[in-house]
């Protein structure tokens, strides 16, 4: 059973001026509901993080927003206009103003770093070759990959691949970038570096970022707004400070999971001492 919403469900300072609004989004697979009516509003220019344990439906939510999965019900609005993904014009217009950074980067391994970054410009704009070259190199240099333009993704390190994926995401100058578990499988230092990179380029380029992750510490430090997805529903929505002080039981259990682990381990160690 999903716990009730906390009394303060929206960050007071950011109500209004939302770039993306989701209302009652539902999605299931084989009769099993994954998203049970998700509603959230992403303020323009913010770094918005959706937290949640594995299997909570975070990636499915993001895929529904990026039209990779078709929602069963619900409404998605961008700049106040309801999106109709069945209408190719509405869908393409939305997709060209957004970018998606995949968990595994989804780089084209048969294309060089330069061609990877230039591809969305070549295929979705009518820019000339010179302008495409300029913008692709500009994005690569912003991400400190200018010297690797001729390298294939397989020749780059994991961190460089992540930066290359971000360069490809920002080259079209999107208004919104979706990040799917950008720090999955990384060590704590690299996790920090990835969040710092996202925050830096979000400030530099000015896009609105929607990140789904289960890395609570980094998310709370870097984000402007946090939502917690639990059993397919948003059970908390607020600022990182509000999240840190929330008395909501799901928020508490998610937030205090390291302390709970420490307590369990201490108990086990105490038991061992006692039996000895």
């Amino acid at each position, binding site marked *: 059973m999903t716990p009730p919403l906390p009394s303060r469900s929206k960050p007071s300072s950011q109500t209004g001026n939302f770039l993306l609004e989701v209302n009652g989004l539902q999605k299931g697979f084989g009769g099993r509901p994954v998203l049970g009516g998700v509603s959230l509003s992403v303020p323009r220019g913010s770094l918005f993080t959706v937290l949640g344990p594995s299997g909570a439906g975070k990636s499915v939510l993001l895929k529904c927003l*990026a*039209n*990779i999965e078709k929602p069963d019900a619900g409404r998605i609005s961008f700049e106040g206009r309801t999106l109709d993904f069945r209408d190719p014009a509405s*869908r*393409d217009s939305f*997709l*060209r103003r*957004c*970018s*998606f950074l*995949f968990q*595994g980067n*989804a*780089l*084209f*391994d048969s294309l060089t770093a330069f061609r990877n970054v230039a*591809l*969305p410009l*070549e*295929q*979705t704009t009518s820019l000339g070759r010179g302008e495409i070259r300029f913008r692709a190199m500009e994005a690569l240099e912003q991400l400190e990959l200018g010297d690797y333009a001729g390298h294939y993704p397989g020749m780059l390190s994991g961190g460089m691949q992540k930066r290359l994926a971000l360069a490809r995401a920002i080259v*079209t100058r999107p208004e919104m970038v979706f990040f799917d578990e950008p720090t999955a499988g990384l060590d704590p230092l690299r996790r920090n570096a990835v969040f710092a990179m996202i925050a830096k380029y979000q400030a530099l380029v000015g896009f609105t970022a929607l990140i789904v992750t289960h890395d609570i510490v980094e998310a709370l430090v870097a984000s402007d707004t946090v939502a917690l997805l639990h059993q397919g529903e948003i059970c908390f929505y607020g600022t990182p400070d509000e999240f840190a002080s929330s008395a909501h039981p799901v928020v508490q259990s998610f937030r205090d999971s390291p302390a709970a682990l420490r307590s369990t381990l201490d108990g086990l160690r105490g038991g061992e001492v006692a039996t000895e």
Partner: protein
Amino acid sequence: MVGSVGSFTLDKVRGLGDFALFTGRSLGAVFATRRLWARVARALYEQGFRCLPVILIVGTFTGLVLGLQGYYVLNRFGSEALLGVLVSLSLVREMAPVLAALMLVGQAGSALAAELGIQRNSEQIAALETMGISSCGYLVTPRLLAALFVFPAQTALFVAVGLWGGSLSGSLLLGVDPGVYWASVQRAVESEDVRECLLKAVTFGLLTISICAYQGFHAHRIRGATGARAVSSATTKAVVISSIAVLAADYVITSFLI
């Protein structure tokens, strides 16, 4: 029992409809895909240049065997002079389009299915779609356009080397006069035969490349298999279904044109 047969049939009919839509969407994307010709050139290289050795080798051996078998059959009736007729008509009407298509399926088609399957697995296809790029237009359309040129060209090459192989075994090894052999080839092959040959080549090209692309593109839908296993299943299905489709389409075209 009846329920499962019905469900199986519905599933197959749905699959056929989906395949038709996929092919239609890919062909329709010709006018909507930017910088298409650079990718067509790459597909021409993959299907054409890289498959040349196999076409040359198989074409030569097919001609050699036809010359050898044909000579001994015709020799029973004292008709060795008709060896050119037998080799050329066998090649032009049936063997060249079918065998060239099967060779191209084995080399270019399987590679295409595996490549698209891996791209599906690594979310490259999803990445294209989130960029607002038509994944069919970008990945499949150039291959289909290239097949329209490559399959007839490779079939013509297969015929040429097959005729040469037939002349090699018939004239050089078994003593049929080369002049008689080539004159009978010239007499036997008519424009309708060439038209039938090219029609088959184009049909097989479109059919096999779209089947291979469809299987690879939808590798994630394969039941009971994920990851590398899904890619291998998709590639196997692509080759098997394409090969059956070539033989079935050959029968249908031949029965209409004969």
